[in-house]
């Protein structure tokens, strides 16, 4: 062994190879056909790219999958941008793909487009063919697997939102070779033997396009189209479109959404009734308040608090009347008194002796006041009254003329 020769440890060599590959092929475009596509449990994609003679392992890590907008599956021709990486531990190399562009449609995609065109031409997707979904279905049929997430979601949503609905589940295989036949037979059989069913949910939970493929089969599409019972398709996720979706009377984006669709009205109705009940109760409270108001006006009234008020009121009225009467009498008496005083005054003024106080005298004959000289004859006896005292006199001469 010469001194200059380098002796590597296995790991050292692998490390060197890794660097060599990485530096030489860190940005390469490669074209090939996809084969052996697999999704790992951590959602990284693994497959091979191949041509007529050769094959190379590939991986698309989860963080490079965002921009992929087509179904990666076996048989598709693609162009990829990748670096060549190695697993040092196993001395295997592979393409670590950063970008992938489809160059051809896969076999399944071609079939899908072909069937879609054919059925569309037959008018199977026409809006006017679509049957209305009954607003309050009582019996809801479900054609799906008994073991998938779909059936569990449907049951729990219906039970919660419209517990009065009867669910009739027709268990079928939803993937694999027999799936399409089982699904289409189930739809036919329900139509024939369980005609009381109001609406049919046909579908399954999410999966790859291969998993969902049964719902792209012509036999299933035709069974749905021929169903007398309205069909709601619910296959996979929001983004998955199948032939069944186009031909169904209504497409629900997921099985849960289908369950919500059939239970929505009943659920709304339950909520509506609950609200009316609340209003009913609060109306009762208001009626009670109104009653209480009436009652409290009564119990706060004087009569209720002090029944004597009834008598007191009357007593007061009597009192008042007596008072009025007395006042009336009083007034009358006062008037009389005034009248009397007035008369007294007037009588005073009538005293015949008043002029005598001013020096006049009053002459009388037979106690009658003499007003004119002509009333007298010579020799008559007269009496003359002064302011104090009087005298008798005899008439000597009469002068009828005034002085």
């Amino acid at each position, binding site marked *: 062994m010469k001194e200059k020769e380098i002796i590597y440890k296995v790991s050292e060599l692998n490390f060197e190879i890794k660097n060599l590959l990485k530096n030489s092929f860190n940005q390469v475009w490669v074209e090939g056909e996809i084969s052996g596509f697999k999704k790992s449990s951590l959602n990284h994609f693994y497959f091979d790219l191949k041509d007529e003679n050769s094959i190379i392992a590939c991986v698309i890590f989860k963080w490079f999958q965002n921009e992929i907008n087509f179904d990666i599956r076996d048989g598709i021709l693609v162009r990829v941008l990748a670096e060549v990486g190695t697993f040092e531990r196993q001395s295997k190399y592979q393409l670590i793909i950063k970008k992938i562009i489809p160059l051809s449609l896969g076999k399944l995609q071609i079939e899908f487009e072909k069937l879609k065109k054919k059925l569309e031409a037959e008018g199977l997707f026409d809006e006017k063919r679509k049957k209305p979904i009954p607003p309050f279905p009582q019996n809801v049929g479900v054609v799906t697997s008994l073991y998938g997430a779909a059936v569990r979601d449907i049951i*729990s949503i219906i*039970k919660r939102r419209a517990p009065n*609905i009867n669910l*009739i589940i027709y268990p079928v295989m939803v993937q694999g070779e027999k799936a399409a036949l089982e699904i289409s037979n189930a739809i036919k059989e329900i139509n024939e*033997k369980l005609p009381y069913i109001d609406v049919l949910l046909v579908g399954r939970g999410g999966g790859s396009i291969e998993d969902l493929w049964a719902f792209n089969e012509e036999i299933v599409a035709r069974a749905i189209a021929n169903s007398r019972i309205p069909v709601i398709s619910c296959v996979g996720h929001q983004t998955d479109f199948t032939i069944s979706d186009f031909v169904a009377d209504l497409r629900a984006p997921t099985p849960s959404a289908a369950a919500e669709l059939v239970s929505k009205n009943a659920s709304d109705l339950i909520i509506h009734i609950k609200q*009316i*009940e609340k209003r*009913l109760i609060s109306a009762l409270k208001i009626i009670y308040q109104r009653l209480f108001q009436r009652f409290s006006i009564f119990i706060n009234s004087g009569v209720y608090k002090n029944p004597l008020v009834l008598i007191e009121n009357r007593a007061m009225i009597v009192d008042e009347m007596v008072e009025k009467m007395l006042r009336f009498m009083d007034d009358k008496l006062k008037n009389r008194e005034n009248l009397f005083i007035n008369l007294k005054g007037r009588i005073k003024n009538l005293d015949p002796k008043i002029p005598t106080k001013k020096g006049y005298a009053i002459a009388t004959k037979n106690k009658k006041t003499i007003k004119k000289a002509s009333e007298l004859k010579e020799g008559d006896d007269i009496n003359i009254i002064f302011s104090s005292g009087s005298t008798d006199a005899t008439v000597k001469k009469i002068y009828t003329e005034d002085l």
Partner: protein
Amino acid sequence: MKKDNSFELKLKKLEEIVNKLEDENTPLEESIKLFEEGVNISKELNEKLIEIKGKIEVIKKDAQGKINLEELKDI
């Protein structure tokens, strides 16, 4: 509930009753009668909609291909 007009009619009646109850001009004596009627109707509606529990049945086929419905009890 399909073809069940009485349900819709009863619901409408219940709505009318509540509207009347909420109207202050409705005499008290009438209100109390209406309330009783309303409670009865809402009870009926509830019985129909909520208290009648739907069944969950699974279709099983026997050897002759005859369909049987088997109730799923514990889900």
